[in-house]
């Protein structure tokens, strides 16, 4: 027991009075000879600091980004092993730490011991749903032998952190991904242990949804694609595994939290299409072009290079519902005459004539499941057609069509209905700032919505 290394639990806090006491008590109760707790508090206005004082003297104050608080806590700590934890973690049993620390002996380059997380016993539905789905995703990645990243709430070797230069102080969300990747780049290995911690996170539906957007945003730059997981598998994890989990969870495990899954999935898909997946697929596309040039240029095989340059003109995508929005679209058809065009519209009694290839989907606003299946259908069509420009005249079909169009790298254009002269439609409001060109048909709207909208003429 005596030559076990000191473990420093480094925990940033901010108004954490609801969870902190359970968290620190479970750490203090560990049957481990040398534990240190370091708190960096962002000037909490509740009882957080008072609670922390019961367990440690090492309390520091810092207002700023999460990454910065974490780095401060590491710099103030002394242990050879760092437990970079959140304040809403509870260690379920007393021997957890002594078990976990042993896994650093698993190999010479083990830098991280990463545990499974589960929802606490009396957790809310949202917490349980999040953790249930998370567990399925981790299981899938292990079975497919994707590399695992030890994010937050894991144990790390201090020496490994020193080698990578510590936590990036400028990152607020996704700081754990950032350091995990740098550890990976230095050749450190992760040991995943199935001795779970309770993680009491995502306590409200609002948090669950907003975290999807924050998370997607955080991964949007470079993080997501360096996980080396193909988009198809990410979608598989989110959709197929999720739906399977829902069926199993509701029917066999009788866990009602899965009932929330459809809404969670929609939020997640919207978040992904809005941010991270867009970047990822654009990155992918670029790298493929780059590879083509690389393989053709060194010895100047001129013919091949021309092949790359002379691609046939790309397809134009049109998306609109089947009423007046379709009529408006047809009035614009001069704009794409002579080009290869396809249309996505609702199946119904009215069918477009003289527009091009037509794909029919069911109306999406009937229920959430229709929205998901409709969005998946649109995604499939877009992936097949690979349009360079997608234009929508509304109505709500524009939401999935234009956001998902970004996935395939298309330029997106929303033409607001001519009937909107004083105010944007709901679809328009939701798409504002999310499309490449937002055209309004009345110049008056420019004074209300500023430079996010463009006036370029109108149909009448």
């Amino acid at each position, binding site marked *: 027991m005596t030559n076990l290394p000191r473990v420093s639990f480094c925990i940033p806090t901010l108004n954490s009075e609801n969870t902190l006491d359970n968290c620190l008590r479970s750490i203090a109760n560990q049957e481990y000879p040398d534990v240190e707790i370091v708190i960096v508090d962002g000037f909490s206005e509740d009882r957080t600091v008072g609670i922390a004082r019961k367990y440690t003297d090492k309390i520091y104050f810092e207002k700023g980004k999460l990454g910065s608080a974490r780095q401060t806590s590491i710099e103030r700590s002394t242990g050879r092993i760092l437990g970079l934890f959140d304040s809403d973690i509870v260690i379920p049993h007393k021997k957890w730490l002594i078990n976990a620390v042993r896994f650093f002996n698993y190999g010479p380059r083990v830098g991280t011991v990463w545990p499974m997380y589960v929802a606490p016993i009396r957790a809310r539905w949202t917490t349980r749903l999040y953790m249930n789905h998370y567990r399925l995703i981790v299981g899938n990645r292990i079975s497919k032998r994707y590399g695992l990243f030890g994010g937050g709430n894991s144990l790390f070797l201090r020496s490994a952190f020193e080698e990578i230069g510590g936590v990036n102080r400028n990152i607020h969300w996704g700081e754990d991904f950032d350091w995990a990747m740098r550890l990976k780049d230095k050749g450190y290995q992760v040991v995943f242990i199935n001795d779970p911690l309770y993680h009491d996170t995502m306590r409200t539906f609002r948090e669950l949804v907003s975290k999807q957007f924050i998370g997607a945003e955080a991964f949007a730059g470079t993080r997501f694609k360096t996980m080396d997981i193909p988009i198809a598998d990410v979608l598989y994890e989110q959709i197929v595994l999720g739906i399977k989990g829902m069926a199993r969870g509701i029917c066999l495990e009788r866990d009602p939290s899965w009932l929330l899954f459809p809404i969670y999935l929609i939020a997640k898909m919207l978040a992904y299409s809005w941010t991270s997946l867009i970047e990822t697929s654009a990155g992918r596309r670029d790298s493929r072009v780059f590879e083509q040039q690389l393989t053709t240029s060194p010895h100047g095989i001129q013919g091949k290079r021309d092949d790359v340059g002379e691609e046939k003109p790309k397809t134009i995508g049109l998306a609109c519902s089947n009423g*007046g929005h379709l*009529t408006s679209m047809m009035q614009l058809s001069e*704009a794409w005459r002579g080009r290869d065009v396809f249309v996505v519209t609702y199946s119904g*009694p*009215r069918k477009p004539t003289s527009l091009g290839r037509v794909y029919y989907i069911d109306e999406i606003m009937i229920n959430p499941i229709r929205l998901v299946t409709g969005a998946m259908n649109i995604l499939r069509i877009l992936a097949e057609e690979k349009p360079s420009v997608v234009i929508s005249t509304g109505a709500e079909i524009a939401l999935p069509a234009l956001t998902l169009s970004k996935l395939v790298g298309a*330029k997106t254009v929303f033409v607001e209905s001519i009937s*909107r002269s004083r105010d944007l439609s709901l679809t328009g409001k939701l798409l504002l700032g999310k499309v490449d060109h937002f055209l309004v048909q009345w110049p008056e709207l420019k004074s209300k919505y500023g430079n996010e909208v463009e006036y*370029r003429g109108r149909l*009448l």
Partner: protein
Amino acid sequence: MILVVVGMSPIPFDRLVVEMDRIAGQLKEEVLIQTGPSKCSLTNAKTRRFLEMSEIEEAMKASAVVVSHAGMGTVLDARRLRKPIVILPRRKKLREALDNHQTSTADNLRGKSGIFVADSEHELSTLIERARNCTIENTDDSRKIQLISFLRELIDHD
């Protein structure tokens, strides 16, 4: 012939449908009403729930006047075929639409050549007669051309 259109909305527009059926009883010519989801029983006019785009086009060509909700689709079609059109906006208060955007459409179209805005269903019969005898001036297409050219450039540029 008179073509009456209520559009693709899932909400019925009985005010227009019922009044036009009544008017159809007084007229000698054929009245074709696209009724949408309306459940009213109509006696005088010919009715269809929905019409294909090509059918709308044919019926419109054969019509002297088009009567319609203030939906842009029908207005644009009538404009293209140079048919006079009488529009009655759906109102939110009467639960004919989810919002009042048709009222603002109607306000924007008021006074345009060949377009007659009815503020209530009682004005329809008068306006139909006025529409029947009107001459439609050549329309100013410059703004439409501007919009199309912008899109054309955007597409070709890519």
